[in-house]
């Protein structure tokens, strides 16, 4: 499996979406809107973590795959079944992984840096074995995943097309509002991650690099944890955005999600 197959997948998915748009919309397929072009070209890659994992990321300087960390994963874990344990995962969206309190946004340039070994899917791959329901249960999750793996950064073409075809307005994809139309992929159930693009990069990703767009952490963590403070000092020195926030009643994920969304609105809308 490589870029040749992924490009063929992309062409097929884009054709399917165009046909879907023709049948669902009386006006037929629409040309790309400026909002969809802008957002699909520039949306950041988001990776969030629990406070302890984030501290370890800041200390090591890398986002590291479970396989490279030597983590022992259970045989029924999605990453083992789908053979994705060797990847670092990102959502092309605001932070959407629950039970996390800190996070990093990377610029889309990270995809260009990994165009030979990174891959995308127009959904959260882990959800295939948990929350998402495939309309054709005869097809294995591995086959389904393989049919939907797309090259990076070209997967953003499908993202742009789906923002225009499936959503009321392109910003709804970012805001997390469900699409008007389910689309042709054939997945039901779950949450926003059913239609959020995922990017996987093998092994590890350097944090303190030109691709880092912004770091997010609760104010108390920046002050009290030396590794997090170290990253924020680096961001301040290098002119990288660093956002700290209050977490009333320990509701870290909601605060993280809200701050990230506000940041994206300021930068990209």
């Amino acid at each position: 499996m490589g870029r040749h197959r992924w490009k063929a997948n992309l062409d097929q998915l884009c054709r399917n979406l165009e046909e879907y748009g023709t049948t669902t919309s009386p006006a037929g397929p629409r040309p790309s809107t400026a909002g969809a072009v802008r957002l699909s070209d520039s949306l950041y890659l988001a990776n969030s973590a629990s406070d302890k994992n984030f501290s370890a990321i800041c200390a090591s300087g890398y986002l590291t795959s479970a396989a490279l960390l030597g983590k022992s994963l259970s045989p029924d874990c999605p990453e083992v079944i789908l053979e994705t344990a060797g990847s670092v995962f990102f959502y092309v969206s605001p932070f959407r992984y629950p039970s996390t309190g800190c996070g990093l946004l990377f610029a889309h340039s990270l995809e260009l840096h990994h165009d030979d070994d990174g891959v995308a899917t127009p959904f959260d791959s882990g959800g295939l074995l948990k929350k998402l329901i495939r309309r054709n249960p005869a097809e294995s999750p591995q086959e389904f995943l393989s049919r939907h793996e797309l090259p990076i950064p070209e997967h953003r073409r499908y993202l742009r097309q789906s923002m225009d075809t499936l959503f009321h307005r392109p910003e709804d994809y970012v805001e997390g509002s469900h699409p008007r139309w389910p689309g042709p992929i054939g997945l039901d159930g779950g949450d926003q991650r059913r239609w959020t693009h995922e990017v996987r990069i093998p092994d590890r990703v350097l944090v303190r690099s030109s691709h880092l767009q912004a770091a997010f952490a609760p104010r108390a963590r920046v002050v009290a944890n030396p590794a997090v403070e170290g990253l924020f000092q680096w961001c301040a020195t290098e002119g990288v955005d660093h956002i700290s926030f209050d977490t009333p009643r320990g509701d870290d994920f909601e605060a993280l999600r809200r701050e990230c969304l506000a940041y994206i609105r300021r930068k990209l809308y």
Partner: protein
Amino acid sequence: MPTLWNVDEMEIVGYGNVLSDDMLPSVVPPVFRLRSDVKRALLPPYFFNAGFLCNATEVSQSELQDLRDSNEITLFDDAFPASAGFELWIDQAFQRHYQPRDEANLALRRIAAEGIKNAEEALRLGNLAEAERLSGVAISADDTKLEPLAIRAAIRRIQGNAVGESLMAELAAPVLEERLFKLLVDDYRRTSGCKEPVEAVSSKVAHRPMHGVARLRSAA
């Protein structure tokens, strides 16, 4: 329409975070499970409304264990009954506390006040490591307090770490104007037991092999 669960019909099996000792004490969001069906667990994010838990994510027992193994949630060895209006928090010894919100807030405010007092004393005695640790306890207990930020800023100034000092000022900026924050830091610096600048125990930005790279945005 969000899915609702009565909090009084649930028990708590853990919390939706993993913390290290320098992040304590901390209020944490509980991981619930149904008393009537202990295989069904409910994860944050969620919100409460009139004694009901709304919009939680339901997961199975095996998913809970996967999340624990991935260091994404913490599970207790036992479960205990949930109550509406209660707060779960973890103290510096990793002991859990589950009490009415007002009582929890009072306890945390006391820990913050004590942490600030002891950090100020440690700073006065020139024990920067202890002052740093205690200011961390204070801000973890109550992240609205400004004194821990000012104590940290004074320590960074003593260590000659101008970036670290200005980062603390930046963190305080939403609630205190820079000039007033500086006065507070000046005061802590003046009363500290360190008369000369000292080197930080471990400077996180002293060696920067990637210095400047973040300014070099890709042309694409």
